[in-house]
């Protein structure tokens, strides 16, 4: 009789474990970091070496990576116009950046911001969100992305420690 009670107790414990236990093996997702690293980029590209470096920094510091795509709204349109074509370029790129960070175990919180120029969009973002570090890509060999003028502006106005990363040529 005692043996029967023991068997029943084991079965009950097993059933309770099934009920209360996790539905499936949990995939370890990165926990949000307390510090936030902003990686702004524009014009449909972000050099993968710059991204890798930003991910390494975020990993080392236990920070959340905030990739931010900066959209330009041409002057002939109202500032709040939807810029569908540019958004269509930005979204897959942002998704790829987000995936790269998550794969590396770095928490990510992506943004899109728009303005008349990349620096205008950046100023808008800085007005409403806090960042502990800014990592900006620089590549003077290409015709897209931040200009030297933009980079100077970023260094002068960034509300946080700023790192300009130049990819190896």
């Amino acid at each position, binding site marked *: 009789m005692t043996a029967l009670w023991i068997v029943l107790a084991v079965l009950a414990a097993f059933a309770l474990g*099934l*009920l*209360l*236990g*996790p*539905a499936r093996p949990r*995939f370890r997702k990165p926990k*949000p970091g307390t510090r936030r690293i902003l990686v702004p980029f524009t014009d*449909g*590209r972000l050099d*993968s070496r710059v991204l890798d470096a930003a991910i390494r920094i975020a990993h080392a510091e236990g920070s*959340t990576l905030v990739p931010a795509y900066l*959209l330009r709204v041409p002057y002939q349109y109202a500032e*709040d116009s*939807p*810029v*569908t*074509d540019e*958004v*269509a*370029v930005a*979204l*897959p*790129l*942002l*998704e*790829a950046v*987000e*995936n790269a960070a*998550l*794969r590396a175990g770095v*928490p*990510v*919180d*992506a*943004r*899109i*911001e*728009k303005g008349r120029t990349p620096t205008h969009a950046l100023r808008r973002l800085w007005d*409403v*969100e806090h960042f502990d570090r800014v990592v900006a890509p620089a590549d003077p060999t290409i015709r897209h992305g931040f200009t030297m003028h933009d980079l100077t502006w970023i260094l002068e106005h960034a509300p946080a420690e700023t790192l300009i990363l130049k990819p190896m040529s």
Partner: protein
Amino acid sequence: MRGRYRILLGMAAGVGKTYRMLQEGHQALDEGEDVVIGYLEPHDRAETMSLADGLEQVPRLHVLQSGLDLMEMDTDAVIARKPQLALIDELAHTNATGMRNEKRYQDIDEVLESGIDVISTVNVQHLESLNDAIFELTEVRVRETFPDRILDEADEVVLVDLTPEALQQRLRAGKVYAPDRAEAALVNFFRVDRLSALRELALREVAEDVESRRVAQSLDPLSRQAVAERVLAMVEPQPKSQRIMRRAWRSAQRLGSEMDAVWVRPSGREPTAEEATQVAALRRLAGILGAHFLEVDGDDLVATIRRVAAERGSTYIFVGTPDESRRREIFGGSLLSRMVRELPGIDIRVVASRVDRDRLSP
């Protein structure tokens, strides 16, 4: 009047786009049209080059750049020649420095503006919006891209298709590259898995192009109303909601529909500072995407969504992967099963992180 533009789209080099372009040129010539080759990419493919015989070629421009003798299309000469049809290869090509236009598709635009019909060729990996998807698939960053609007604005987009296996056969037979280069290509870019993915992208692009033209041309306003879709993205003040909104927007674009995003805020609870920042970011994203952002109070998530969906006329709901315990699923009913049960007639899509696909690997 602007000329007609026909684009031959392929998944990769060697599928036969240039060959098809020349065939169509010969056919037009046989039908009495005045046809010239505006630019033919010299691929050193015997079959292709022999097919160019019998078609007039507008002399190309020689441009000296960094000690190299580069050849470019002479756009002015093509326009001055005034044929009815010009065959112009590789529309995504970047011109040599110093040319009037940076890209060949801009040269083609000038030719079309002068009233000349154009047939051109391009591979799907050059499409700007696919640049990152292609990079993820092939680990090759394509530098020469062209904007998506080029395909949208073309009068016809025709897929030149070949199975990956057939393309590999062509490579092995030396019909695409010289044998030494073909061997390297077969183990790198031209692997069956990569070609299959590229083929899928090319097929999808052409299918979407056909669909958008069909809907735009054939449906009267009443029919459009009948098939109208409206997308609703369920968001929370969390970073993953950015992804849900982005995916919902891309689907809304494909469906040609309006999009709403809704956050169901628990009644009587003020958002924390972190939640307020996330909601503000979502609201800004909605503005950029041209979506409507709604913030509604409710303690029963599914009942609130049901009310919002009815009010907004939603037909398609995007929701993130629920993070529920087995206990809650059993005792409270899972969120998804409740949604399926209580939102009849509405499509529901669960947005996952692509990174989670890594877990599928054995």
